Each structure stands twice: as C-alpha cells, then as structure tokens.
C-alpha cells in the first residue's frame, strides 16, 4: 500500500517536472526563434486583428459593467462616511491598477487564448504542423512567435479601452443614477490618478498578454488525442492562463510598487 502511494507521488512529481520543463523549453525555443529569424509582419498584423480587434467588444462591455458596479458598490460604502466625492478616484484607480488589466487578461484568455489553442491543436491532430515540418518550414516562426508577440503588444491597448470605458461606466452611474456632481467625479480622478498608475497597469497587461499567448500556443502545439484532445487542451489552456494571470498579478503589483 505504502509503496503504491510513494509510486503514485513519484510519478506525479516526475510528470509535473516533465510538463514544467517542456513548457519552459517551448518558450526558450520561441524566444530563440524570435531573435534568430525574420518576424512575419503580415502574420503579426493578422494576430493583432484576431486577438485585439475581435476582442474589443467583449473588453468594452467588461469595462463598462465593471466600472458601473464598482461605482455603485463604492457609493454604498462611501455615503455612510460622507466620502462620495472620492468615488471617481476609487473607480479610476481600481480600473487602471487592478481590474482593467486582470479582467481583460481573463476575458481575452477565454476568448482569444482558447481560440489559439483550438486552432493550433486542430492543426496538430490533422497533421498540418507535420506538413509544415516536412516542407522544412519553421513552425515556431510560422505559428508561435507572431501570436506571442501580438498578444504581448496588443493587450495594453485593449486594457486602455477597459480602463476608459470602466471610468465612463462609473461616471454614468454616479452622475445619472446616483445624482452626484460631474465635477466631483472628474476632479477626484484628476487629483488622485497619476501617470505611474496607468504605466503600471499597462506593464501588467503586456505581461498578461504574453502569458495567455504563451500558454495558448504551448497547449495547442502539444495537443494529442483527436477532437477530445483539442477540447481538453482548450480547457486546460484557459484554466492555466487564468491561474497564471491571477498569481502573477500579485507579484507584479508588488514588484511595480517597489520600482
């Protein structure tokens, strides 16, 4: 019995080491390819469109609804102590420093990260990746690098939209629903939000974009087991990217605080 348990733990640890090793080796190969081969600009723009432009509506909706809910919740708490004039800054700082980057990261991971995994995974199981290899084409240059670079560069722009629409959502609730002064809301933001807040949020979002495309391409590239395998990889891609984004968020916040 004890031997079986030890055996199980040993196998689990070995499998974990193998997976983590393979995950990082994949990244090393992608980074090496980025710096040793020509970046496919047309594919990069294609990915900007797929990851960025196509996610815009989801991101705007996320921003508006989060901003509105945040304003409402903040109002409920702040009116008890007479601090309604600070709602603007709370909404803006919340959206810029935390909620904008993290919610956009999670939403894009669900929308574009899963699509990346499903697409590359399908190419894997239908031997399309093998076909590229037999033509002696660099599959990392063709499939992986444009997606990771595009994800890293486009996410800050998407987050900018989340931030702006979150603040607009908060404004709508404060001014038109709660009847607060428009000047109070805007002045509160002007007084309390500095450029470093925005910079921090954008740096974080770039990192989240990198994480979700890294996970998405890796899970797709390593897909096996037919249609079921594609489904498993896609689910695993969204779960892994979400966990990594949530975990990285704390450490990035701590790191950026010290810079």
């Amino acid at each position, binding site marked *: 019995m004890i031997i079986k348990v030890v055996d199980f733990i040993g196998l689990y640890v070995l499998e974990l080491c193998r997976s983590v090793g393979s995950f990082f080796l994949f990244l090393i190969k992608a980074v090496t390819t980025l710096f040793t081969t020509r970046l*496919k600009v047309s594919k990069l723009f294609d990915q900007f469109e797929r990851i960025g432009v196509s996610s815009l509506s989801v991101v705007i909706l996320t921003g508006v609804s989060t901003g509105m809910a945040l304003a409402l919740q903040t109002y409920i708490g702040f009116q008890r102590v007479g601090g309604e004039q600070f709602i603007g800054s709370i909404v803006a700082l919340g959206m810029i420093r935390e909620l904008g980057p993290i919610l956009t990261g999670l939403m894009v991971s669900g929308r574009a990260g899963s699509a990346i995994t499903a697409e590359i995974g399908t*190419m894997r199981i*239908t*031997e*399309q990746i*093998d*076909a*590229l*290899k*037999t*033509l*002696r*084409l660099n599959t990392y240059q*063709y499939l992986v690098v444009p997606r990771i670079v595009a994800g890293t560069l486009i996410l800050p722009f998407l987050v900018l939209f989340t931030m702006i629409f979150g603040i607009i959502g908060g404004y709508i609730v404060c001014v038109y629903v709660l009847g607060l002064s428009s000047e109070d809301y805007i002045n509160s933001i002007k007084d309390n939000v500095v450029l470093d807040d925005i910079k921090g949020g954008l740096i974080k979002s770039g990192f989240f974009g990198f994480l979700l495309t890294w996970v998405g391409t890796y899970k797709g590239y390593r897909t096996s087991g037919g249609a079921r395998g594609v489904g498993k990889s896609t689910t695993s891609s969204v779960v892994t990217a979400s966990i990594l984004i949530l975990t990285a968020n704390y450490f990035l916040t701590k790191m950026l605080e010290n810079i």
Partner: protein
Amino acid sequence: MIELVNLKKQFYDKLVTKGVNLKIEDGTMICIIGRSGEGKSVLLKQIIGLIEPTSGQVLIDGKDTTNISERERDKLFEHFGYVFQFAALLDSLNVFENVGIKLLENGYSIKKVLPIVKEKLSMVQLKEDVLYKFPSELSGGMRKRVGLARTLITNPKVILYDEPTTGLDPITSRVIQELMSDMQKRLNLTSVIITHDINMFQYADKIALLHNGKIQSTCDAKTVWDSKDPYLYQFIRGLPNGPIQTEIPHAKDKF
C-alpha cells in the same frame, strides 16, 4: 540511398518498431505493407525525422540522420517530400497558398510563385480553376493531388507516401497510382509508399512486409504473386489462416 538499421521506436511501454532493417535504392519505388497498427506510419515518420527513433539509425547516403542538428537535418531533407494520408492541407489557406507555401514563406513574391504553382498543379492534372479554392471545397482525390503538388514544389528526390489511395474510389485510386508512377519515372524519384492497396504493386519495384515490428519479408514486386514466402502469401491474399495471427475471430467461430 536510404538505409534503416535496427530502427526501434518505443511509446511508453509499447515497442512499435522492434528493429527494422531495410535498404531503399535510389530511383526505386518500394511499397511497405503490413497490418493496421503495425507501425508503418511511425516507420515513415521516423525516416523523415517527424518522430525520433528510440534507437537505431536512418542513413541517407551513408549519413546518420538521428544524431544531427536541426539545421543539418533541414539541409539533408531539403529534397524529401511527404504526402500525408489525408493530405494535411492547411485548411485556412487556399490551394495556391497551400502549394506555394514554401516559396511564399521564404519571401518569394506572388508573381514569381504563381507560375510555379500552376506548373505543379498541371503535373498532378489539376486545372487552374482550383487555385483559389479552399481544401474544404475539394474532393478527397483532389486534396491528395494538391498535397502531391505541394510536395513537388520542393523539387524532391525522394517522396514518402502515407497510404495515398486510402478512402478513394477505385477510379480515383487508379488515377493517383498512375500519377505517382508517372512522377517516379519523369523525375527519377525514390518513392517509399505505405499502402494496403495491392493494385499499387504493379507500379512498384519492391515490396516489404512489416510484421511484428520488423521487416518480415521483402520481394521483387513483379514476382510478388508467385512468392512462396508464407507471410507475404497470406497477407496479399488476405487469408485468415497462416503465420500472421489475427485477433479477430473468424465469422464462423463468432456464432
């Protein structure tokens, strides 16, 4: 010349190829036959480097390809083509982009690539009207021909075919077989064909039977039907009784 020396491939605890030894002379067409699940496709993928062998050697003109860098491998296999069982066309690209992908990705302009693609398509008897169609709009036979045209773009000296006629009707199968034979003669190719199709034998030079992870028998294709080798005899005639054991019970034993 392609030479496989004691080639073994293990997946987890299952040994698929158990020491394959085979010599394939330049300019010849060889059919590798064997039961489903014997590891024929695995063998073919080991030859071209899509699957790393667990042990053994794949010698191309005497050079071992199993322990070389990726760059060396790219150079060595530059003129190798691979035709996949289901063509493996990139479904997001049209026929022109699929056939010309190698040149387009290497920076050639569309203007330069277009006439080359048209030439390769005509070699596989496809008309220009398929140029801008997507793989989903093509029949199985057309897809296989586009796959072959894509391979021809590399000006191959060796083409590896993975079940090129599987799933096709007899007429289309015949067209594909004649096309392969025609290519073989016109371009002086070396062709390695994984097949279950016994009609392919009439175009081939040599037959090799993969059984139990090893090359069990080899035979001249012209005399294969006269061969007294018990394995070949049973396999090409599809006999249930013989040295090749089947797990499937005979119909009369079932009921």
